[in-house]
């Protein structure tokens, strides 16, 4: 009996439906006091007065800290460009200037508000094109002093936070002989992750070390960032994870944690808790970056794309976070999944006086695929060729060599994806049935599974159950509460309910790359499988003597160690585990795993920080929409996903990821407007004005999983969670453009824009 591919109850389900689960924001310590931050009210300015005297005299206040009280250190995931508190200058609205600890949250907030702060406003750099012009003020005049966190420096300078350029031979020649050249410009707004649990942290300074309690996707990254900000070695920081109320990439880097730690030190080790208000959370969250993408394609007389240029300018915000790493993703997505000849790719990440941007599910890919797939529709229309036919004609096939030299052995799966969609929603029928104000969009993508390292210890209890010790986090996806649980249960032949996976603790579990890039089931699943294999071997060795059989004749199955093919000759795992206590000692196994980067050509581009896409997966989406010509509202009538998944470990988890990601993509395409004013401040500041998709806004996604088990993955698993967010903006924009007969090249497509297009 297998549990792989079977529905199982998630291990955290009982606590979540009963209200017992303790989220980060619920966590409390004995004697705990509260913290609050004073944040910059403007996006650019010079601090001319900062006096904490009055605040310090407020009731209940224990400490008020500013840059003068913090180590003189710079921190950052990729580039150390950020201080804990603003020093002299402020660079974005919401930037911390001071921190307060007080007996109650209300007292802490009142004291933060009582700090005497004066800021002389300075011009804000906001516009992306202008940020790169010679007359733009520098967001960081001292940019040259910033040091990369690891490895050599990368291309950057002035307001250019990072740059990746690929300029293969033959592009200009092809444009010179092109039959026609098709150009487009696409603009994408930011998107707020909008997890329902606001960020929080509890910091404790004790025994000369910092302990931090937080609900976080990547505890080891918090450890590293806190150690940088507080100028201590990483092992001086312990991060303990709690149940996460959603993250989607926004809880991958430190936020409130270093402030909680420093405040606790200032109040002689009392635990200090900080929690964001929703507005604080929204205006300081590392949202998905806004971007301008410009595409030009040279097309020959037969309609082949013989060369392409892609330029993308993406908004880094005021500090870099993870963003420079991601700039080279443009190279991997510039042609989408279609042959397009030599392609020049210029990706620029620019500093602005706005909130630092960061990872959001499907990093960079959402707007790059929007651009590429809109552009494909445009080319097909110019050529007078059917959009689907045009895509299929140029679709990647097995053995496709990409711009970075990576070879996709299995890209032919894409055609299976198109066939799965065709079987459920025949293109010709959709066209024939089309009514006014209805439109159809189709698109395809490929994507990576994050390769970062992970490790797990599987230890056998004397009652035959196991504990898995890992710093992996379940952000809600079920990757731990189902996926890894199932992998271990399967390997040991025990029920999933007998597998208990601990919450992360960096003092206890080894490094884990966090819940990002769809990696947990694959990477931690594989590490746990390896660990479980070691347990299996040890169980067999202990049982061999007891069963009077050779270890190689034994198998571990159905809660027993038994002699293969000899019914009745078996012992329970509990019996073997107890015996081991007197023979070899407690039974446990360790496993580690990391996916190597696929081969690539290092000379193909400058700034190639994410050089190739490990463990690729393939995706085809189709949307049918209806536009209300009176209100401008767009309704998604049908949404289809064909997705290569390696192997489905958990059907609920897999479908849950697809349905949830498509919903976030529909929000990105149609609802979630996060505008930045000329002053660098967000216009939308609450969940009332930042409009998330509601239950009535999304249809049930029709999902067609394509299984091609990966020999390196646990039971064949690949990443699932990110891919389905890549294409909704692309196919919905294509569908709305189809419905109205006019191009929609900006995201989101709001009712106002739809009405304007209809009326123009």
């Amino acid at each position, binding site marked *: 009996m297998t549990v792989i591919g079977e529905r199982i109850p998630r291990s955290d*389900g009982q606590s979540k*439906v009963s209200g017992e689960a303790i989220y980060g924001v619920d966590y409390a310590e004995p004697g705990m006091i509260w913290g609050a931050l004073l944040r910059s009210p403007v996006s650019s300015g010079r601090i001319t007065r900062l006096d904490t005297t009055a605040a310090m005299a407020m009731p209940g206040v224990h400490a008020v800290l500013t840059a003068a009280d913090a180590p003189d250190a710079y921190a950052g995931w990729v580039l150390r460009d950020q201080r804990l508190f603003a020093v002299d200058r402020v660079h974005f609205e919401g930037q911390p200037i001071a921190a307060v600890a007080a007996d109650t949250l209300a007292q802490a907030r009142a004291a933060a508000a009582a700090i005497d702060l004066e800021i002389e406003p300075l011009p804000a750099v906001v516009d992306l094109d202008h940020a790169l012009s010679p007359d733009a003020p520098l967001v960081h005049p001292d940019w040259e002093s910033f040091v990369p966190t690891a490895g050599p420096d990368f291309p950057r300078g002035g307001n250019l936070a990072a740059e990746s350029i690929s300029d293969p031979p033959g592009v200009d020649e092809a444009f010179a002989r092109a039959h026609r050249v098709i150009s487009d410009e696409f603009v994408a707004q930011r998107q707020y992750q909008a997890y329902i649990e606001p960020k929080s942290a509890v910091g404790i300074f004790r025994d000369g070390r910092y302990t931090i309690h937080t609900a976080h996707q990547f505890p080891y990254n918090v450890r590293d960032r806190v150690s940088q900000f507080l100028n201590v070695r990483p092992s001086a920081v312990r991060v303990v994870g709690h149940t996460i109320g959603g993250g989607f990439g926004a809880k991958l880097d430190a936020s409130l944690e270093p402030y909680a730690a420093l405040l606790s030190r200032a109040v002689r080790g009392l635990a200090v808790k900080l929690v964001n208000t929703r507005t604080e959370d929204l205006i300081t969250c590392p949202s998905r970056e806004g971007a301008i993408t410009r595409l030009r394609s040279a097309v020959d007389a037969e309609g082949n794309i013989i060369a392409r240029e892609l330029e993308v300018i993406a908004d880094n915000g005021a500090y870099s976070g993870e963003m420079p790493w991601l700039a080279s993703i443009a190279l991997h997505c510039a042609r989408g999944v279609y042959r397009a000849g030599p392609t020049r790719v210029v990706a620029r990440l620019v500093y602005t006086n706005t909130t630092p941007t960061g990872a959001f599910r499907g990093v960079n890919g959402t707007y790059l695929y929007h651009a590429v797939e809109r552009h494909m529709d445009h080319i097909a229309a110019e050529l007078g060729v059917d959009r689907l036919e045009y895509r299929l004609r140029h679709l990647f096939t097995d053995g496709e060599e990409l711009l970075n030299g990576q070879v996709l052995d299995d890209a032919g799966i894409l055609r299976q994806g198109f066939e799965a969609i065709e079987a459920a929603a025949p293109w010709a029928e959709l066209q024939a049935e089309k009514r006014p104000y209805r439109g159809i969009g189709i698109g395809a993508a490929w994507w990576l599974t994050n390769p970062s390292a992970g490790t797990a210890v599987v230890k056998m209890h004397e009652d035959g159950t196991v504990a898995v010790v890992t710093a992996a986090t379940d952000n809600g996806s079920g990757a731990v509460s189902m996926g890894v649980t199932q992998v271990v249960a399967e390997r040991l032949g025990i029920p999933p309910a007998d597998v208990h996976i601990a919450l992360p603790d960096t003092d206890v579990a080894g490094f884990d790359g966090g819940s990002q890039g769809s990696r947990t089931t694959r990477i931690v699943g594989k590490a746990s499988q390896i660990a479980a294999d070691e347990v299996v071997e040890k169980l067999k060795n202990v049982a061999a003597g007891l069963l009077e059989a050779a270890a190689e004749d034994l198998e571990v199955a159905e809660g027993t160690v038994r002699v293969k093919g000899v019914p009745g000759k078996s012992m329970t795992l509990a019996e073997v585990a107890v015996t081991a206590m007197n023979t070899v000692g407690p039974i446990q196994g360790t496993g580690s795993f990391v996916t190597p980067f696929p081969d690539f050509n290092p000379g193909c581009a400058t700034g190639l920080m994410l050089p190739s896409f490990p463990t690729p997966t393939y995706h085809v989406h189709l949307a049918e929409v209806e536009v209300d010509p009176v209100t401008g509202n767009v309704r998604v009538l049908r949404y289809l996903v064909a997705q290569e998944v390696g192997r489905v470990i958990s059907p609920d988890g897999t479908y849950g990821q697809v349905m949830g*990601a498509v919903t976030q993509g529909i929000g990105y395409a149609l609802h979630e407007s996060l505008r930045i004013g000329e002053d660098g401040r967000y216009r939308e500041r609450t969940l009332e004005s930042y409009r998330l998709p509601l*239950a009535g806004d999304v249809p049930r*996604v029709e999902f067609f999983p394509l299984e091609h088990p990966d020999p390196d993955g646990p039971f064949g698993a690949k990443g699932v969670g990110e891919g389905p967010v890549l294409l909704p903006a692309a196919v919905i924009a294509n569908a709305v453009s189809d419905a109205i007969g006019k191009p929609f090249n900006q995201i989101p497509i709001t009712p106002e824009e739809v009405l304007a297009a209809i009326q123009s």
Partner: protein
Amino acid sequence: MSDSQTVSVTINGHVYTADCDPRLTLADFIRHKCGLTGTHLGCEHGVCGACTIMVDGRTARACLMLAVQVDGSTITTVEGLASGNELNPLQEAFWDNHGLQCGFCTSGMLMCATELLEENPDPSAEEVREGISGNLCRCTGYDSIVKSVLAAAEKMRS
């Protein structure tokens, strides 16, 4: 500073009495004075619905009420849905049908669905979608929540 007031309220069958600042929200009263952290705060201005509870048999957003408003009332929070350790049909259905991922919206969804099924024991899928459209979920895309509520309704009718 304003004078504190004594609030006495029955929550999930237990009487809680506490002195509190008149400006204390009901949500903070429940979470901090009563220690019932199953009621979640997502936005603190009545948009997300995560803090939905029952006050005298009707759903309410605990973040939009003051503790002093409920003196003498009877309240049910998510912790009051189960009988001891036995989950009620809605809770079971959310667990069985993957009606949750991160689970942070789940308490509010459960309370909202409780009222929905009291008023309409046999809703259509569209009616459930409409019924939960005041509660935000960022993980699931809602479909599994609709499925969960329909499954619970069926079980509760039989």
